[in-house]
């Protein structure tokens, strides 16, 4: 063959890096060192004697920890290889982790946080030495307050679910402060609200009532009316829900809550479709939270750290975790003197690197830009929905013929009935093309579900590519189902057997347990 080169096929040919690396303990060689530690100075050693020998009886570790012994480059090489075996949102068209808002985390924000002026700050330094970071956090709080319409904001939590926990903890404290702590022992949520609303409420001691939507998938106000009452501490809901459907009667829900003395808590982890369009406070919510790692672009970091923002009405402000940052003249000061506060929810002031990233992201976009984010995210979502629904066997249950906001919960029910191939299997096969998706939260109310959320970050061409891959896998499901069933084929590892993972006799949660159970 010679030039010119033929056009590329419609579907990308892909293989993920595959290094077949051993487990790190198998790479150990006695005597190798990865990094050396500064040792006590001779004079210091002399002054204090042998501190290890001097440890009280029983406190001196007898056998060194059985960590691997590896030269520095070998450790590096191992982990770099593992990194190539991890897809990463930067590498793929990551629209398949719907509800998770896998948007672009700008590299400039990663660069900005790496300054010694942030990395090497101790949280208890003189406030005078921390004016830069305190001011930045303060201003970010104010921006989040504006975006939510709320009065006050705390950025202390390091994830969305813990931010939801913080919401319910504040609600609990609020009711207790009114002497209604005992009486109000129920929380109402919906099945298409994120499971952490139910789970945190339960952890905070509440009975959880979960409502199902109406036939068209809209949250059902009548169902709410049927259960709400004097025992209700709060409604805790997501909107738009996991289905991408916005509850048009959300204000009615909030009013219902208020009418019985309950509070309304809004899970805005993913507010990506409504930034600058509508605000929590405008619908009357008392408290809400955002995930900075969804809506505000901080990277998902393999599952954290993220960062949560808790925004509350004036009435709830006294309950926010402490300390809070106050602006006194042009200085920023910490105030821990807050008697009604629920106290600490995490060490110090939150996931500071992510706060700086989120601040920078907002500053790069401004009000118009944020609204454009929402609009383009919604345009992308409805465009992708069009493409997906062109695939025979795919459907978008509920709200028939209507638009969605930022994501769609789809179903492969049709395809499954025709071919017996499940949504999980299709997702796994998609990885052979450098794509992937996530099915959905349990329970699978929508059968054979998958949830796509394109965010604002992907171009039309990329959305087309993504849809084309799903169409191709659907075609395979009909024509060569074995290929799908035995997938993946172009991945780091092959079809994996998960039976051992649920059996206490057989599971192996660490290398030492594996050695003990199977090789001793």
């Amino acid at each position, binding site marked *: 063959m010679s030039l010119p080169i033929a056009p590329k096929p419609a579907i990308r040919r892909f293989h993920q890096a595959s290094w077949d690396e051993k487990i790190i303990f198998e790479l150990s060689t006695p005597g190798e060192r990865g990094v050396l530690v*500064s040792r006590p100075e001779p004079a210091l050693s002399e002054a*204090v004697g042998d501190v290890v020998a001097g440890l009280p009886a029983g406190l001196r570790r007898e056998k060194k920890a059985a960590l691997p012994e590896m030269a520095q480059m070998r450790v590096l090489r191992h982990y770099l290889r593992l990194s190539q075996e*991890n897809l990463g949102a930067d590498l793929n068209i990551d629209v398949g982790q719907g509800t998770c808002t896998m948007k672009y985390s700008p590299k400039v924000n990663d660069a900005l946080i790496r300054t010694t002026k942030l990395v090497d700050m101790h949280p208890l330094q003189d406030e005078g030495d921390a004016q830069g970071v305190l001011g930045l956090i303060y201003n970010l709080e104010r921006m989040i307050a504006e975006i939510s319409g709320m009065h006050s904001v705390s950025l202390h939590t390091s994830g969305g679910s813990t931010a939801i926990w913080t919401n319910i903890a504040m609600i609990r404290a609020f009711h207790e402060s009114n002497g209604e702590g005992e009486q109000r022992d129920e929380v109402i949520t919906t099945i298409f609200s994120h499971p*952490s609303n139910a789970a945190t409420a339960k952890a905070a001691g509440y009975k959880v009532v979960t409502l199902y939507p109406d036939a068209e998938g809209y949250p059902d106000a009548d169902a709410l009316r049927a259960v709400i009452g004097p025992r209700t501490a709060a409604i805790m809901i997501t909107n738009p829900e996991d289905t991408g459907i916005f509850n048009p009667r*959300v204000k009615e829900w909030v009013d219902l809550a208020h009418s019985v003395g309950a509070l309304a808590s809004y899970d805005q982890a993913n507010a990506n479709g*409504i930034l600058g369009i509508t605000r929590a406070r405008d619908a009357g919510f008392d408290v809400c939270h955002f995930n900075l790692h969804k809506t505000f672009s901080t990277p998902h970091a393999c599952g954290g750290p993220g960062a949560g923002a808790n925004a509350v009405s004036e009435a709830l402000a006294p309950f926010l975790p402490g300390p809070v940052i106050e602006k006194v003249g042009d200085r920023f000061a910490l105030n821990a003197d807050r008697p009604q506060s629920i106290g600490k929810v995490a060490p110090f002031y939150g996931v500071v690197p992510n706060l700086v990233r989120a601040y920078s992201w907002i*500053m790069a976009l401004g009000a118009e*830009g944020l609204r454009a984010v929402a609009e383009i995210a919604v345009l992308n979502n409805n465009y992708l929905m069009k493409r997906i629904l062109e695939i025979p066997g795919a459907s978008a249950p509920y709200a028939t013929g209507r638009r969605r906001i930022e994501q769609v919960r789809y179903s492969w029910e049709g395809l499954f009935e025709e071919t017996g191939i499940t949504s999980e299997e299709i997702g796994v096969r998609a990885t052979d093309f450098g794509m992937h998706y996530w099915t959905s939260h349990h329970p699978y109310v929508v059968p054979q579900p998958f949830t796509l959320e394109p965010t604002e970050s992907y171009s*039309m061409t990329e959305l087309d590519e993504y849809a084309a891959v799903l169409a191709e896998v659907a075609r395979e499901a009909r024509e060569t189902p074995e290929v799908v069933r035995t997938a993946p084929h172009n991945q780091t590892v092959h*079809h994996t057997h998960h039976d051992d993972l649920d059996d206490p006799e057989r599971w192996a949660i660490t290398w030492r347990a594996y050695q003990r159970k199977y090789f001793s």
Partner: protein
Amino acid sequence: MTQPFVHPYLPNSAPDVKAAMLAAVGAESIEEFYVDVPADLRLQAPLDLPAPLVAEQDLVRHVEAVLAANVSTKERLSFLGAGTYNHFVPAVVDEVINRSEFLTAYAGEPYEDHGRFQALFQYQSLMAELLNMDVVNVPTYDGFQATATSLSMAGRMSGRRGIIVASDVLPDKLSRVSDFVRPNLDLAFVPTVNGTADVAAIVALVGDDTAAIWIETPSYTGAVETAIQQLADAAHAAGAILIVGTDPVGYGVITPPADQGADIVCGDIQAFGLHQWFGGAHAGFIAVHDDPRFIMEMPSRLFGLASTDVEGEYGFGDVAYDRTSFAVREEGKEWVGTAAALWGIAAGVYLALMGPQGMADLGETLLARTRYAQVELSGLTGVKLTDDALHLREFVVDFSGASVTAHSIVSTLRAAGIEPGVVVGEYELLVCVTEMTTQADIDRLVDAVDAALQNNSVVNTIAVNNTEEKSA
């Protein structure tokens, strides 16, 4: 969007593309997508936010200028700890966790995200070796949460409410733990004696409603507990368990609590490869034995080994997923969510780099430097240590003998570029040294404190901000 430019973060805001997409979906305008948002909820004016810095160079100039107002611990000599520590972070750790593939991944399957599963399985396994325990979770948010959850596990397992708090606990941690556990548990505090647990008093208190005895070692004041086995025996005798909250930084040389009867060991891994980040980089571990009674109570994900269709290939997956709120919502154990996985990967890389000898060296260096600082500071007239316990990394000095408040010491030393520690009482200062603190650094601190005490130059300032109560 009326902006005259297409934003680099918004590809499809390019006018032609946007028009084509609208046409493809048969919409006149983006408004159509929002029909379900009632008019009265629609924001009428643009958000009131600062003018954007759309050119990356302008953004950089702005944010750099904001942060330039900070003065970091590299520009000060810092003896601050109290939860966040200045340990060395090997460059390889940052290299690995800054890899785009790790930084931006989220929740893929064990196929396309094999690397993440293996890295976190290895983290679990490396921590397990350090702790001599068989099970470690994918990290939760921080040591506060790890401790709160560990106590809650004890409650759920036993159906009891009693927790005996045997050690001095960092006030912030206690604040978090208390608010978290209060629906299910009651904390009983037994004051420490000479820095560590009052074993006799605790033994007297353990009873039928005791779910667990909770030790912190090193404690809030840096004191290392020596009676773990005795307290474990007492707990076990009453059908309770022993929970040890700890910073694992010393276990290269110190016996891990599991060897002395601990059932759950938990704490924070900030010391393992995470920078100080103004207190913004913490992750919590919970370690237990390979006992399903404990494991089934853990809320976090646990990654386990699994076989694949190919011989000799390591696969991975979630162990006992049905415990989690992902699987069963409020029927799961507490909840699971985005927590601190990347920090777990960092800690794994850190432990692999350090190896057995590195961790032993680190432990020794910490013990030696701590001891030296204790000896030198308490050698000054009017200065004494608050207890005789063994200390790791932190200890409290008492200036009451010199009638100088801790606040004044802090003010005076700050003027000399030194952060001498955290004020924990009128006359008490919590001083922290790590392997980053050289003998010369300690000598400089001691000289400065000496000078402050000698001179009447000690400023009895009012406005000192660096108090632990502050953030409590």
